[in-house]
């Protein structure tokens, strides 16, 4: 009887097999085992949002997901979004707008913004504020992030 569980998950389109303890989080597995360090550990409690990734197409907190509980599911991290049109538009918009400073929250912001735009392709300022209230930023004061999300939205559904 081993202390680890064998789990197979698709990460950024590639099938990956893990042998993980029951209580290992997806965040730890992504960072420490796969060196996918774009998702960050800001609080390990699900509050700050820096660990946000997509799981089966839905934005989730990697720090609150157990790898062992993700058998057969599909994870998308910021590193796997190269071909994603929405992320590309958001990245360009974030850069132009100055919507990032230290950059630590940025991958999580981008994933959350992408999820928001999937639900609402033309969000108002207030809708962006509500949709992204779960991603903390200590550097920017948020207004350039809001501008960037709306600029990307405009570009995507032009």
């Amino acid at each position, binding site marked *: 009887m081993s202390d680890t569980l064998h789990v197979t998950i698709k990460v950024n389109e590639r099938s990956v097999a893990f042998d993980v303890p029951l209580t290992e989080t997806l965040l730890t597995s992504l960072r420490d085992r796969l060196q996918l360090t774009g998702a960050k550990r800001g609080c390990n*409690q699900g509050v700050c949002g820096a660990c946000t990734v997509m799981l089966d197409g839905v934005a989730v907190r990697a720090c609150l997901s157990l790898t062992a509980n993700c058998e057969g599911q599909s994870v998308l991290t910021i590193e796997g979004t190269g071909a994603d049109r929405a992320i590309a538009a958001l990245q360009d918009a974030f850069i132009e707008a100055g919507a990032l400073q230290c*950059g630590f929250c940025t991958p999580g912001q981008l994933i959350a913004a992408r999820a928001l735009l999937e639900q609402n392709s033309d969000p108002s300022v207030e809708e962006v504020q509500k949709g992204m209230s779960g991603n903390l930023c*200590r550097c*920017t004061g948020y207004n350039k992030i809001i501008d960037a999300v709306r600029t990307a939205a405009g570009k995507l559904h032009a």
Partner: protein
Amino acid sequence: MSAPFESVGRRVPRLESREKVEGRAQYIADLYRTGMLHGAILQSPFPHARIRGYDLAEALAMPGVHAIVTGDDFAEPDRMGAFIKDEHALAKGKVRYVGEPVAAVAADTEAIARAAAQAIRVDYEELPALLSPEEAVASTVHIHEEVEQYFKVFDAGSQGNLCSRTEFSEGDIERGFRDSDLVFENRFETQAQAHVALEPCGALAEVDPQGRLTIWSANQSVFRVQACVAEALGIPMTRIRCLTPRIGGAFGNKMEPHVQPIAAALALKAKRAVKMILTREEDFEMVRARHPFKIRIRTGVKRDGTFVAREVEVLLDCGAFADDSPGVLGFGLLCARGPYRFPHVRCHGRLVYTNKLRFGAYRGFGNPQVSLAGESQIDDIAEKLGMDPIELRLKNILRGDDRALGGQMLTSNGLKECIERARDASGWASAAPVPASPGKKRALGFALCGHISGLLASGAIVRILEDGTAVLNVGANDIGQGSDTVLSQMCAEALKIPLENVAFVSPDTDGSPYNWGTTASRVTFMTGRAVVGAAAEVEKKLKQQASEMLECAVEDLELVPGGAVAVKGVPEKKIGFFEIAKRSHWFAGGPIIGSHSWVYDRPTLDPKRAAAIGLPFPRIGAYSFSAIVVDVEVDEVTGAAEVKRAWSACDVGRAINPLLVEGQIAGGVAQGIGFALVEEMVWDGARLANPTLMDYKIPTTREVPYELHPIIVESHDAEGPFGAKGVGEVGLVPVPAAIGNAVKRATGVRLFKLPFTAERILRGMLGTKQ
């Protein structure tokens, strides 16, 4: 000014944007080394206790444990501290706050390291705990029994639990109050605020084959890390190399050491690389926070509103170690007069050790606290005199030849413009203000401040590579505020080359010129001046080469855009940097290197005007200014205040990069809103009660107004590089007072204690005791 600028003044996206949006930026937690160990810390459970001994047997026996360090691994004299050297790398002989690092373990995995740390037995003998400055100052129990023997960089006057005391005075304060028609006195209190950079503190220490330490860490100064590790481990600086990965915000938390000396000691003992990343809880409990201030402010004025006298007395909670506290006391007092003409001033205060987490550098460095007091009281004075609060301020602000407190000259002063532009943009004087929503009260509030950007030392080196492009090496960390980009823009501008032809070197104590640190809003001004100086030296050498190549006098030459030197008025007669570089490398003169280093040298004090006792920094200056109007709504049911709109006008001398300046202003305002309305570290006895993001809340997208308007004012400072001064802190400093003033104007309630929680405002509105 001939041609317009190519780089300076441009809204260039920060140079490292791509890597950050693609998730490739490497922060300290993202660094891995083959075979590295993980470090974990055992924290003190007691606020004050002697350490009688350690039992490491069980911990050492755990499989996977490689090394353990305790206070016994550090020598008694090896203490660090920016102003007063009172701190070892780990608690030695005594613990002084709950959460203090007592021992550390390096093990194969983080889980093993943490389990082993918990298996360390420490024999404590509890001592009485002193949890407030008042309690500590009255007690015969001393937190630092040898405080009088500690090395100090200034006349601190340390005694008992008094860590330091400082006083500034100008004129004759008693006469000033006698000459006043009205005298106002109030007391204010501010709380401990946590930095909450999204990235917790961490370090990675390794030992190279020569036995030299290499330390990567989340830090605001590779040079402070190097110095502190040298002091704490008792090893020469030549044996320590400090580097920096990308940094996930700092705001003062990472200016002085956190776990670097501990990680370094583990790496030396285990002879393996050791990585140690703090959890969010440890970051709250173990590092540092903003000083709680108690402020008594007494201001005398003439009936026509002329300011006559101001006395400010402060009492600071130092926490368990001095850290940057003497500086915060001194700087806070220096700012306590505000950027106003007061013929008679006395600002004095004490800093007292307590058995709590050390308090240290935090954006604003004492200025937000004293500005709360001064700017709130001025509004009340205006009300009493029947004057508009902005008019009262305009009447008294520094202008022309007026000096800052102490006698500092102002090399530029855009304060009046800041006030007017914030006032006009907000519609302050409008007869028809925006009405409050149903069930709310609403009003505008105003406050202003001055803040410095010049202190201590910076250097820069610019080299021309073989292909004629340039390398800029400054030793100044970009902590997210954008200095890599801004300094590169200055270098590109000075040499008239495209920005992409400047390579920016990451700070490295082995190769970079000294920079005290990225703090105190100083990098644009101090390091920028060094960059401009270094580029000027390079320009001189380029012209020397070109004069030989073109056979003309150096005075006849000028730099032209694109990277070339040409004869003035004869643009066809030019030599490109590439040609010059070839010649310099292979033929004559030698590779072109320019450098400049300087230390801010304008004295804080003009002894003919002011007197000081316990001045922690003798040379400080270069004032930026800010004025802010906030539009605040207060909910009549809950008392909750919300900032709906804000206009922050900041005099930055010149905006080298307006996009990044806006970002700093907005970020400062947001952090100021958190400080003003919501954030508070709460102690339950000796223990921090809310060391998590569940319990300690910072503003989300919904607490910061989208309509946050940064207004850039440019006063073209005579001494700043391209006229630029700092912006990092001015956005934050006046925010709490502005919000307090808005709440007063909306509800009639004047609050004297931060944060202005809904509870406090509601109690105020109901007239119940706070």
